[in-house]
């Protein structure tokens, strides 16, 4: 059993690129919201010196169309499915979880508690997790923001509220300016910052949470190589997700999986997961 690889939510469409999705151990959907959303106006992306910004804004069909149309087509690909859930209140999150609860073709629910591109729910992350816990018996993963002032404390709170695992981390809010006009490159002004610059941030968050709670952690943030994946595992991740690298290289999952095996073996680990937490002792 090697370290599972997932795609980051919103970083892959398994229906338009099934051969990219097939390189993963499970497919994580784009975040599903109660109603359909057109998302934010373009321009939505901008490259920066050490990463990129996105301002997509949770474009999607809404839960009803997702369940009736998208999910059956995803299920036909025979990959375990993690559904990323979003909303603007605890009731939104809980309502979607209730609808997902009885669907056998869904393996895990990931709660997107940290999208930097839309308005936040008024309740705390723990209150949202509690509402979802009351609505489903499916495994619940809470995806947290690296901007939290004390992410370990937040991790303890969502686990106490019923989260079965953590996904760390979402993007950081950032901004890029046009060098000539000094105006924001993105139509909405700011966006979520991802890519190589996020890796040290992710390592710190994963490490802090792995010391604070004893649940599985999906680590992501700037993973570009097997070495990066191994470092996240050493910080405490038991699953590694790939995000921005997929935009750069759709063959990255297979490459990173091979590199991860080689990097682990070179350090004497029979399995990459044997390195879990090595950074924290």
């Amino acid at each position, binding site marked *: 059993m090697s370290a599972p690889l997932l795609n980051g939510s*919103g*970083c*892959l*469409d398994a229906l*338009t*690129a099934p*051969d*990219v999705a097939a*390189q993963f151990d499970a497919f994580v959907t*784009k975040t599903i919201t109660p109603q359909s959303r*057109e*998302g934010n106006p*373009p*321009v*939505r*992306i*901008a*490259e*920066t010196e*050490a*990463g*990129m910004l*996105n301002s*997509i804004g949770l*474009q999607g069909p809404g839960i009803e169309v997702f369940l009736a149309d998208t999910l059956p087509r995803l299920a036909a690909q025979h990959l375990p499915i993690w559904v990323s859930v979003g909303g603007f209140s605890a009731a939104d999150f809980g309502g979607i979880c209730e609808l997902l609860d009885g669907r056998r073709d869904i393996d895990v629910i990931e709660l997107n508690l940290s999208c930097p591109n839309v308005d936040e729910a008024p309740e705390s992350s723990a209150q949202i997790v509690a509402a979802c816990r009351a609505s489903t018996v499916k495994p619940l993963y809470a995806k947290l923001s690296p901007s939290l002032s004390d992410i370990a404390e937040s991790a303890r709170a969502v686990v106490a509220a019923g989260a079965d695992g953590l996904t760390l981390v979402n993007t950081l809010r950032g901004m890029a300016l046009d060098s000539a006009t000094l105006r924001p490159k993105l139509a909405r002004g700011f966006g979520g910052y991802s*890519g*190589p610059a996020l890796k040290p941030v992710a390592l710190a968050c994963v490490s802090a949470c792995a010391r604070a709670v004893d649940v599985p952690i999906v680590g992501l943030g700037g993973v570009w190589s097997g070495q990066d994946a191994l470092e996240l595992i050493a910080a405490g991740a038991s699953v590694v997700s790939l995000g*921005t690298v*997929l*935009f*750069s*290289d*759709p*063959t990255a999952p*297979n490459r990173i999986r091979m590199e991860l095996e080689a990097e682990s073996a070179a350090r004497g680990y029979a399995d990459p997961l044997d390195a879990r937490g090595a950074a924290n002792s």
Partner: protein
Amino acid sequence: MNGPVSGAYRELVRVTGAESIGPYTLLRVSAGGIEPGTPGQFFMLHPPGHVLPRPMSLCLVEAGDLCFLIDAIGPGTRALCDLEPGDHLHVFGPLGNGFDLTVPRPLIVGGGIGVAPFPYLIQALGEVPAILGFRSAHHAEAAALIPGADVVLDPVLVTSLLPEEPYDVLACGPEPMLEAVRQRVPEAQLAWEAPMACGYGACYGCVVEIDGRLQRLCVAGPVLRAA
């Protein structure tokens, strides 16, 4: 795995040439196992040292080389234009939907860096009448890639040369030009562009309004019917 998206391959290819044409650069790379695809499709070219690749339509196929006409408008495109013979870069494609070539009376309409896909389009269609607009005589040097084209310079608009008789317009150029062509020729095929991160439907960065809703240009286009 080399073919992660239907028909498209990603490969590290060698630069075989880079020449200036007016303000633009014609970058030549060895094709390797990458298919040239249909005119109007695009390729993601990865500037070394950058996080994201850049979408470019194929300009020409010559002697086993793929040629891309590039306008250095920012750090990424400048890095592509600065490549030298012997350098390497990743190229991924062909992607998206190209022009429908089964048209009886093709007419090429375009301008600026939008002329990029036309030489390869002419390779596929044979001699085709063309109307091209540029902002200056310097930019219009790129018209040499489309022999026999009628060329106008700013402030004259390409739409002023559109013939009255019906043609199957294949257009690529700046958005105001494509909008003007769309008004005049509802059945025209228009090749649009948008900033893209991935080029294969993953990022939802390149959306444009199509049929009243925001859709991914890389999947639905980049060539769209005007109407």
